[in-house]
């Protein structure tokens, strides 16, 4: 049973008792990583089912390539809960099944090849006009007001609509305007699984049941009447010569939902937070928009949203620390990207940093399959925001809130700007 975050005992020593849901860790994990990197460097905790947390770039890179000694069968950062059928009570999934991120070789390869063509640079470019129009429409909604919540009204609204557009499902399923969490939308589902659900297994189960019902109906509809959308293409595809069944199609839709929404939403929000609080960087990007692609990579480095999970299937030793078989390991890509051994002055955003082998999208065979889509969404979102509202600042009277754990980013971000 999960404990409410505010009811947990405070962290003593981060090296032996870290808590990835601690509000201080969510708000600003950099100083905690710096301390651990110097003296630990692989931390351990018994909290949230127990796990290990590397903090150095070289260690994270080495661990990411230990396939299959570190298995992807548990890609989430908390222990799995079995998902049951709401009617029969039968277990549908004992652990997350979102191929290929939950898959090991040899199944990983065919499951990845099935989806990669939809996310190549060429394929992603076909979604750019939709994304630009969407970002413009969002700015239209608040530009005359002189203020907005950059997280809720802008960053949060882009990835679910792009994913709905890509999948060929009703855009109104993405989110609905208004405050709070709109029921029966992708935003509610993602937060119910990964954000609020990470520390609340009952919510995670109930949310998963809703999502299974939704994708099940969408897949059945395409099976009966195929179109030219992503789901219909999935059903026409194959896994090393074997046909794609409905279960695999539902699992793949789940992957796009889980991997493609709060991740990019968080990245866009963090980038806006940075530019709202660092006017020099904002003014430079307004003056030199050609720097935006490099700036996006640098913002991904400093504000990497995603930590992934792995399961040790054998004893693994890294940097002198032995991780016993059966342990969960948190792939701390965000901390790797702040390692001074790899990045000089690692906590500073250098808009045109030339040497930047960041691992925000992971490294090795599980490199984020949607990285080109995320990169396009970030570039378009920031480009539109900077063009339309070049002089935006943080509204210091309002609160900024951060969520963290599996995915870190701002959830409220009050911004003010001169009305156009």
């Amino acid at each position: 049973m999960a404990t409410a975050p505010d009811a947990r005992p405070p962290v003593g020593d981060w090296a032996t008792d870290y808590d990835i849901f601690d509000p201080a860790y969510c708000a600003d994990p950099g100083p905690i990583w710096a301390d651990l990197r110097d003296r630990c460097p692989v931390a351990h905790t018994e909290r949230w089912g127990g796990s290990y947390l590397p903090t150095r770039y070289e260690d994270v890179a080495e661990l990411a390539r230990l396939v299959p000694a570190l298995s992807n069968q548990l890609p989430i950062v908390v222990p799995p809960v079995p998902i049951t059928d709401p009617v029969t009570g039968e277990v549908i999934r004992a652990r997350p099944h979102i191929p290929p991120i939950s898959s090991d070789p040899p199944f990983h390869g065919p499951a990845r090849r099935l989806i990669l063509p939809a996310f190549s640079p060429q394929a992603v470019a076909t979604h750019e006009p939709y994304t630009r129009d969407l970002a413009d429409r969002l700015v239209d909604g608040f530009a005359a007001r002189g203020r907005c919540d950059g997280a809720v009204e802008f960053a949060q609204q882009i990835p679910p609509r792009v994913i709905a557009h890509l999948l060929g499902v009703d855009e109104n399923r993405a989110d609905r305007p208004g405050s709070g969490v709109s029921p029966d939308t992708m935003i509610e589902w993602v937060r119910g699984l990964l954000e609020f659900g990470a520390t609340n297994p009952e919510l995670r189960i109930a949310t998963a049941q809703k999502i299974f019902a939704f994708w099940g109906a969408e897949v059945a509809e395409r099976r009966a009447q195929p179109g030219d959308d992503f789901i219909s293409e999935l059903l026409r595809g194959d896994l090393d010569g074997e046909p794609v069944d409905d279960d695999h199609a539902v699992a793949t839709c789940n992957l796009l939902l889980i991997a493609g929404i709060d991740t990019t939403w968080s990245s866009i929000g963090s980038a806006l937070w940075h530019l709202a609080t660092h006017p020099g960087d904002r003014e430079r990007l307004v003056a030199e928009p050609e720097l935006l692609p490099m700036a996006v990579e640098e913002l991904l480095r400093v504000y990497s949203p995603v930590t992934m999970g792995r399961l040790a299937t054998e004893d693994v030793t890294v940097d002198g620390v032995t991780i016993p078989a059966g342990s969960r390991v948190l792939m701390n890509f965000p901390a790797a990207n702040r390692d001074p051994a790899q990045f000089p002055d690692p906590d500073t955003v250098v808009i045109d940093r030339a040497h930047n082998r960041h691992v925000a999208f992971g490294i090795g065979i599980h490199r984020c399959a949607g990285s080109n889509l995320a990169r396009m969404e970030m570039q378009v979102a920031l480009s539109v925001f900077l063009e339309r509202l070049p002089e935006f600042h943080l509204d210091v009277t309002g609160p900024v809130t951060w969520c963290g754990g599996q995915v870190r980013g701002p959830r409220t971000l009050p911004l003010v700007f001169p009305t156009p």
Partner: protein
Amino acid sequence: MKVRVDPEKCQGHNRCYSLAPELFEVDDYGYASAAGDGVVPPELAEKARLAAANCPEYAVIIDEDG
């Protein structure tokens, strides 16, 4: 100067392609290779070095004397 991509190391990050589209091409799965014969014109040498310095997999290889 010549540039090439080690196909054993490339994981399809596309960092090289986004930084130097003149020098790289990607297949339908996103895996990169050098465009043409990999010869880098002098005016693109800096872009080639940038592509190599941004590959998280160390898959972009520069031969300065190629």
